């Protein structure tokens, strides 16, 4: 995979690259000042930090050991419920769910699909019936044995409209009424139509397996690496599950997650050792601690992306030439430099970059304002004014939109940048305004397609793009049990998406973490920072 190799070569020291990048001192200082970052002196431009580590982390050089407590500071998001099927997307909820519960499958740090509570999933010849084998010897936190009954109950509960599960649409293809247990460690999951990538769906975050019959979750009983000791609106305490099914893990005795709403207070907490790590951290925040010898900066090269979407049912984006012009008007390198300090991967208007069905031979779209101008004009848009809507809801959202708007003007695109309050973006802008931004964590090509580009997809209405030819290809892809053929089909789908699609995928997020120097076990996650929220690999460094 040439593209991947090129991207891997970009990995390196975050701060070093800020030095080499063209993100100006003024830009960073201005932003730091605006954010009120205490101690952001700008001196990180003058020398690299000795405390910055490479993304490979410590596991290769330091033997992990058991014991200790790690304190994580995050701004608690909306509400909290220990029920993993309905708890909202606040980071503290995701961290708790990921560590108290498990999925059947998961995407590991490289994005590869790996078994978790399942050991295998096999489809019949037409992918209408899946047989899932479960891991033996797994116990719940209360000591009872994990069985197929738990999985049958969990899957039915997720799909049941009465549950209002956030992940219900992810299992829309499952014929829930007919899921059945074969034996204690085997179950059958029938599909409503041929569907050959069920394990990918089961690896998404709403698919936690709960105990058979569980209705209330106070306390939550899971199979995960940690047990919940207590949790309130300001503090969640987790302790090690000594019977965790991964031998020897987790290493930490305890994890304390505390609510610190202010980003500057969080950074100050790490700098003074009160907190061991925080989430999230932006490029400016990471830069502000670059010279602090007590702090480690660690950059996750994720495949999370923040595309600009165009509603293809609305003028001027209904014309494919307009969409192509918009893509050619995008200077991806500049956006990466400004938004991710040059550490992100450059995008080529496609997603699913770790999937074996990702086409690596498509020429990288490059910034060509003249060609963009010609296409924009040919589409009859010379006098058209468009609005790009943004907000400060997601990392790099505003900065990337600001840069794009400046670039597009050079291509003759008359664009006005509009900013929505962050808490109104989802309800007033996203999917309402024809040209705005989206945010996706990594998922495989067909999982992503199922969520956004089929007419019955949950997010289809946002961009209203999904021509008949890709609908047919999608059905062929999910209907074949031949992985090679499936990859060929997804490559064809993404080629169409690249040429005609509604997304400007300009880059993939570099997500910096900062840690006190006593913490080890960091792993580069393709999904998000903080080891993709899997805390079992962290440990306290020997003195």
């Amino acid at each position, binding site marked *: 995979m040439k593209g991947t190799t090129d991207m891997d070569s970009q990995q390196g020291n975050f701060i070093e690259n800020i030095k080499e990048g063209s993100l100006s001192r003024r830009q960073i200082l201005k932003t730091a000042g605006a954010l009120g970052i205490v101690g952001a002196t700008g001196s990180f431009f003058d020398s690299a930090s000795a405390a910055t580590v490479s993304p490979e982390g410590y596991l290769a050089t330091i033997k992990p050991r058991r014991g200790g407590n790690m304190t994580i500071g995050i701004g608690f998001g909306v*509400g909290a*419920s220990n029920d993993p099927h309905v708890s*909202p997307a606040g980071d503290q909820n995701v961290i708790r769910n990921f560590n108290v519960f498990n999925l059947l499958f998961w995407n590991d740090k490289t994005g590869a699909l790996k078994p978790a509570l399942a050991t295998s999933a096999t489809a019949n010849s037409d992918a209408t019936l899946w047989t899932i084998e479960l891991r033996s010897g797994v116990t719940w936190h209360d000591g009872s044995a994990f069985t197929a009954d738990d999985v049958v109950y969990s899957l039915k509960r997720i799909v049941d409209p009465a549950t209002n599960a956030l992940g219900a649409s992810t299992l829309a293809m499952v014929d829930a009424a007919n899921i059945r247990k074969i034996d204690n460690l085997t179950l059958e999951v029938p599909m409503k139509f041929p569907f050959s990538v069920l394990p990918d769906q089961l690896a998404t975050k709403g698919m936690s397996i709960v105990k058979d019959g569980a209705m209330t979750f106070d306390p939550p009983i899971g199979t995960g690496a940690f047990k919940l000791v207590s949790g309130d609106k300001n503090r969640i305490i987790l302790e090690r599950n000594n019977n965790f099914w991964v031998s020897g893990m987790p290493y930490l005795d305890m994890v304390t997650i505390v609510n610190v*709403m202010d980003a500057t207070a969080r950074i100050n907490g790490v700098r003074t050792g009160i907190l061991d790590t925080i989430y999230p951290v932006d490029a400016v925040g990471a830069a502000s601690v670059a010279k602090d010898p007590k702090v480690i900066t660690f950059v996750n090269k994720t495949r999370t992306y923040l595309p600009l979407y165009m509603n293809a049912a609305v003028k001027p984006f209904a014309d494919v030439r307009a969409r192509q012009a918009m893509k050619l008007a995008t200077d991806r390198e500049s956006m990466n430099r400004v938004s991710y300090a040059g550490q992100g991967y450059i995008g080529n208007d496609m997603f699913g970059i770790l999937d074996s069905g990702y086409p690596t031979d498509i020429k990288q779209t490059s910034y060509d304002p003249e060609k963009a101008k010609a296409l924009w004009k040919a589409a009859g848009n010379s006098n058209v004014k468009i609005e790009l809507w943004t907000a400060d809801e997601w990392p790099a959202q505003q900065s990337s939109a600001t840069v794009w708007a400046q670039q597009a003007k050079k291509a003759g695109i008359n664009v006005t940048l509009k900013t929505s309050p962050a808490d109104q973006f989802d309800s007033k802008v996203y999917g309402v305004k024809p040209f705005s931004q989206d945010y996706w964590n990594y998922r495989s090509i067909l999982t992503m397609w199922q969520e956004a580009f089929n007419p019955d997809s949950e997010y289809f209405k946002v961009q209203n793009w999904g021509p008949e030819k890709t609908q047919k290809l999608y059905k062929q892809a999910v209907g074949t049990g031949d992985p090679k053929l499936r990859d060929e089909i997804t490559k064809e789908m993404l080629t169409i998406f690249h040429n005609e699609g509604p997304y400007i995928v300009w880059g993939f997020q570099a997500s910096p973490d900062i840690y006190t120097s006593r913490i080890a076990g960091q792993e580069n996650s393709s999904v998000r920072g903080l080891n993709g929220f899997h805390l079992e690999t962290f440990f306290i460094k020997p003195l």
Partner: protein
Amino acid sequence: MGRYLLRRSALAIASLFALTTLVFVGVNFLPGDPATAVLGKSATPEKVASIQKALGLNKPIWEMYTNWITHALQLDFGHSLTYGTGAYGYSDAVQGTAVSELIGGSLKNTAILASVSMILLIIVSLSLGVYSAMHRGSIADSGVQFFGLFFLGLPEFVLGALIIIAFAFYWPILPAISLDVTPKNLVLPVLTLVLVMMGSTVRLVRVGVIEVLKTNYVVTARLRGIPERRIIMRYVIPNAIAPVMQVFAIATGLFVGGVVVVEYLFGYPGIGTGFVSAASGRDYPVVQAYAVVLGCTYIVANFAVDLIALLTNPKMRAKATS
């Protein structure tokens, strides 16, 4: 005087009623709602409507108001919409956590922070204000006024940041953030609040004392050779107490806003942090409860100050009796 007290009490109750109404209307007219806040970008109209129905947010606003005010009068602020197993109406059988349970800890933490700050503020303001008034025109008086103005001009978040840099980084003796309520963790938030507030309180105490010092009875007392310390304790402070208490009433009002900012800045687990979290999640019952508590603090403090003024100021007492 009884009639005055009755009138003042009625006014306080009317203010409380107006406050609760304003809070309810204001919170319910905030853009966004709990359903869209939790659903994020997956907030389809159908899902939003389903959750709104489950939470009772589809009822007419007057019905929601009468329901809320009836319970609020019994100090029952309902259940959180966003916190607890039954939050967001996902379960018909279980409701979210009771608001009183949810905000109790925060209120206690804030009460500790505010009380310690207020006691220190009163001590510092009275000491420096009286001293400054007694030595007006001296270098010490000028110094007090200068620093008073200096701190007065700094917003809490700027002063707090400077204090963090000084005491947590350059001279690392105190924590930069205050995750628990311990004496050590309280020092910097209290210092920030006191320094910001004392700019105005010291100056107002000083002015109040100077006014009293100019009165005929103080001049007469001096002419009679009564020792200065006795004049201060016997004549000046008792007569300056009413305007001084007004100053602290104003300070209480400013405290309400200041505490929220300072708690946020230091990550202190009080109502400031809780208020911001609840507001961002559109957790109406919790936001309403916090707002009512904050507003009541202000109204009750003002009422208490009026009472104190009435008891300590013969002129006011005479006026109230007439």
